[in-house]
């Protein structure tokens, strides 16, 4: 027990441990934190407090003063209580990374919160809901717990199932559908729209079906990256077998881990290019492969955190929306790197549904202020969370994924 109560610095990088000391406690992050602003009674959510608690717990065992006086100023019991509250705050964070954008010392907060979660998992101080998610992902290879061979169930409603959907073994591009779009009926429209567009653009693609396993993102952000390694290796091998030169996904979280995490985790380059659907759409629109009908409506765009702040893709989705004739594109109050989170990130929905809904409410209100008819995003989770908020708040706005919007406006 004594050893377990000791927070280990080994999950952090050298730079992250330095970042703990670099925090100036200026509080800028607090102003911008979407979850703290909805749960002001829990100071442990604030980036400042998360850093402070981690530093304090580490200092107790690793600093000179901590070695001399640590046990007097913080007992094992009080350290455990402190870490319990810290865990609540750390898992109530949507990992939107907005704090990183405003931090005057450029602390890479999102990566830091994930390392903190890893240390909390090592300690066994994390929400039980994460165990359920881990169980689903590591045994069923998807987050819903459905049979993984049913991954192409969304294609059953298509007028005709294209060859790329489950019938090919080799292609130029792999379409990695992702768990939510594969198993949650309200998101089926995303892959259905995506294949419609790819067929129209005459692209050579395939889907992996049951060979597509969860990308590992939920495990990684829960602080359980060790459990994701086998899954990641499987996915990379499955794509390599197709000899594809590109991998495209319409899920920003899948995109982020494929593009930015996989090469580090497997320790080598993937050997193929990773694209988000918005990048592919922008590319095929620029190449003149798609023709549109007019959409004479006001449209606004919500930047998904994993696509915008975390992956740096802001221009492609806007280019796609503005390529549709007649569209009156307007930005919300917070956009690009300052975009407000939808509340659906960071596995928060698993541990605190009310908090997730409160953040979504604030974002949908920003969308309503634009008087747009369409709220477009490029993430199935953002669309789901924001559509739920619109329904609860009785706000009349159509919340759609960007591929749905494109598919709807295709000139057939």
């Amino acid at each position, binding site marked *: 027990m004594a050893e377990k109560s000791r927070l*280990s*610095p*080994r999950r*952090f*990088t*050298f*730079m*992250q*441990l*330095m*970042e703990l*000391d*670099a*925090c*100036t*406690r*200026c*509080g*800028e992050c*607090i*102003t911008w934190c979407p979850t703290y602003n909805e749960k002001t009674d829990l*100071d442990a959510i604030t980036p*400042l*407090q998360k850093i402070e608690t981690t530093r304090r717990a*580490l*200092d107790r065992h*690793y*600093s*000179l*003063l901590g*070695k001399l006086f640590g046990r007097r100023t913080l007992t094992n019991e009080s350290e455990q209580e402190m870490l319990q509250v810290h865990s609540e705050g750390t898992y109530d964070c949507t990992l939107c990374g907005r704090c990183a954008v*405003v*931090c*005057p*010392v*450029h*602390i*890479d907060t999102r990566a830091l919160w994930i390392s903190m979660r890893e240390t909390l998992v090592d300690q066994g101080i994390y929400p039980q809901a994460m165990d359920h998610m881990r169980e689903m992902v590591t045994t069923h290879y998807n987050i819903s717990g459905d049979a993984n061979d049913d991954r192409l169930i969304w294609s059953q409603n298509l007028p005709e199932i294209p060859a790329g959907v489950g019938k090919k073994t080799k292609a130029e591009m792999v379409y990695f559908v992702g768990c939510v779009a594969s198993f949650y009926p309200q998101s089926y429209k995303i892959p259905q729209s995506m294949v419609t567009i790819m067929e129209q653009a005459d692209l050579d693609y395939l889907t992996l079906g049951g060979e597509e396993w969860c990308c590992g993102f939920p495990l990684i952000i829960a602080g359980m990256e060790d459990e994701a390694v086998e899954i990641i290796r499987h996915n990379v091998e499955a794509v390599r077998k197709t000899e594809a030169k590109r991998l495209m996904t319409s899920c920003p979280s899948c995109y982020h881990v494929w593009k930015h995490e996989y090469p580090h985790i497997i320790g080598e380059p993937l050997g193929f290019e990773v694209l988000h659907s918005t990048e592919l759409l922008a590319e095929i629109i620029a190449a003149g492969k798609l023709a549109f009908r007019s959409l004479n409506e006001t449209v606004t765009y919500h930047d998904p955190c994993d696509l915008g702040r975390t992956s740096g893709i802001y221009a492609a989705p806007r280019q796609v929306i503005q390529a549709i004739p007649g569209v009156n594109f307007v930005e919300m109050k917070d956009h690009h790197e300052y975009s407000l989170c939808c509340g659906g990130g960071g596995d928060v929905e698993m541990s605190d549904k009310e908090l997730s809904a409160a953040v979504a409410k604030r974002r949908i209100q920003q969308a309503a202020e634009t008087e747009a008819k369409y709220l477009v995003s490029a993430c199935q989770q953002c669309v789901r969370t924001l559509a739920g908020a619109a329904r609860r708040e009785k706000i009349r706005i159509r919340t759609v994924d960007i591929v749905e919007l494109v598919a709807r406006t295709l000139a057939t």
Partner: protein
Amino acid sequence: MTEQSAELVFWIVHLPLMILFLVGMWFTFARWMNGQVPGQQEERWSQKLATIVRILLRTIFSARLVSLIKNFIVEAWFNRRLYRNSFWRWLNHFLLLSGLMLLFTLSGLSALSDKVLIHFFHLEYVPWIGMWVNPDHPVTAILNETGATLMTIGMIFFIIRRYITHPEQLRTGPMDTWMVVGITLILLSGWTAEIVRLNSSEVHQATAHLSFVGYPLSRLVQGLPLPWDDLTHWMYVIHGILTSAVIVTIPFSKFMHAIAGAIVLIVRGMEEEVAHG
């Protein structure tokens, strides 16, 4: 009491405090070294240290040195992001940091000139060496005064923001208060030492007015019946000891952000440059 005895007292206190400072810095560095080092799978300390030293040397002895210096100026000193967030906070930080850096540089030059170049090589006749140990030299007087004034204005802004206007997002704890107390002690003792010196017989009256803040203040108290000459040495000893007492807390307090923050800002700036080609 003579100047020699005052200096002896200073060194007796200063040296142990600096040893404690170095020990504290060592523990802090050792804590950082518990983390993972990029491209280094080894858990061993020596391997990690070798990687860090290698990265450091490759940066210093390459074209990336220019990027390092640029990022120190743009990100760590001017702090572009803070400017974007709030002009007043930026100004507050910029004044404090600029004053601190200027005074730190002057102290360094003074120590180098006095304890090395003059003490060992007897170069006091070289004007640009001798001037750093002469507080009445116009350049030294104006620069010292400028540094202290910038810091003082920055500190006043800092105190007003943290304790009077107190924006909602601020969380003020003992570490924040110690930072205020520490810097204020250094500034107050420094100004007092300067005022006392300007009232002593050692001062060249022709150039004393170049201490554009200290000199008018010294005129206000010059009528007080105090042993200005004796006090001069002791006030500098007190100022030096207080400064050492604050420096020793750097590894154990929020002051550490000045070192860690600067490194993080430089590294992030360089990473961004690489990412954007």
